[in-house]
């Protein structure tokens, strides 16, 4: 996931990927969605499980708050939550140096001159586990604003990977599909008749620079 400043829903310029939300909300969605958000809330990276990243829901404006309540999540017809993504990334150069040292020590211990590929992999994995404990995870949050009445939502990032993960996470949590708005889906939502819609699927790119007749 790329670096840089994360732009949010609450202030500053707005950078969004817009979605159409397909499907009907379940009865009593207010309660069931709070439960669903709690179920898929952000959980810290579990080093014991060899995780180096973790992703889940938090409240907007506070990446450490996963106690979802209606007054923190629902604003009129807007449902607002945020995705928190944590990742532990070992600095590549430093890791390379530590690995070289560990390999050297291993060879000395074993009285060997060369190391096999499986041995090197094992040392690498052990070292990764050790060093991950010493690195603070990078935290990123991405706000989601979903206008329930309008059946549309914004995710406040255009990062491709985050958006792909979001689509799955959204469906898993809310049981509804999020379809990205693009030149195709915009037309799909114009309510064109079938003939015109089919016409769109057969239209060829125009040559705008061809000599005029």
């Amino acid at each position, binding site marked *: 996931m790329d670096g840089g400043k994360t732009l949010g829903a*609450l202030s500053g*310029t*707005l*950078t*969004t*990927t*817009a979605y159409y939300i397909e499907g009907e909300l379940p009865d009593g969605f207010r309660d069931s969605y709070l439960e669903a958000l709690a179920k898929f809330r952000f959980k810290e990276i579990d080093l014991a499980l060899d995780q180096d990243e973790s992703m889940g829901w938090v409240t907007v404006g506070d990446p450490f708050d996963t106690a979802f309540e209606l007054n923190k999540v629902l*604003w*009129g017809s*807007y449902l607002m939550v945020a995705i928190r993504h944590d990742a532990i990334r070992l600095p590549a150069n430093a890791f390379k140096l530590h690995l070289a040292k560990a390999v050297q020590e291993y060879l000395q211990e074993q009285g060997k001159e060369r190391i096999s590929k499986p041995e090197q992999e094992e040392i690498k994995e052990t070292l990764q586990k050790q060093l991950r404990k010493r690195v603070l995870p990078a935290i990123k949050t991405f706000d989601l*604003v979903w*206008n329930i009445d*309008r059946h549309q939502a*914004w995710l406040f990032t*255009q990062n491709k990977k985050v958006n792909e993960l979001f689509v799955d996470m959204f469906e898993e949590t809310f049981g509804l599909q999020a379809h*990205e*708005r*693009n*030149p*195709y*889906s*915009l*037309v799909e939502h*114009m309510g*064109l008749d079938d003939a*015109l819609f089919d*016409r*769109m*699927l057969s*239209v060829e*790119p*125009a*040559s*705008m*620079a*061809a*000599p*005029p*007749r």
Partner: protein
Amino acid sequence: MDLINRINFTRFLGREFLTWLWFRSDGHEGIFDIPTGAVEVWFDAKLTLEAQGDLKEQNVVKAENPTEADEAHASLLAGKLVAEARLRIIRDQKQWTANVKGDTLALSGVKIPALLSRDDEEQLYERFYLMEELEDLFNDLYEQFIGLRLDDDAWREEIQAIRSWVHQLPAEA
């Protein structure tokens, strides 16, 4: 055709749309008539034109009025279309600026008009309403383009007008 293919097959419409916006804005002093009334569309600051096909050759024009630059005109004449633009959209004394990518028509770096509400919560709603208003304006413009684009007779006339325009713009030799 499955959904992914449909999306990819029609992606070029986004770039054609942005290029058409330029053509119409240029010929009508920025003014477009959409069902909810008149709206002004201007091109600001930075304009990216890209060749079609696999080569992806790009020209990025940075200028106060990038659509007036000879370089931009020459790119059009060479068959490039608008891949990304910074648009200024004006309606009822409200002004938005936004970057738009042709491939996705996604909006980024959106500056909304100044907020009038004082209360924090009201300001938040106003922020979202203004963003939705921009999306609605933008969708109406795209719908106008699609209406023309899918009407064979209307498009035949439009594309001739666009070609004449492209060939009349002052461009570098």
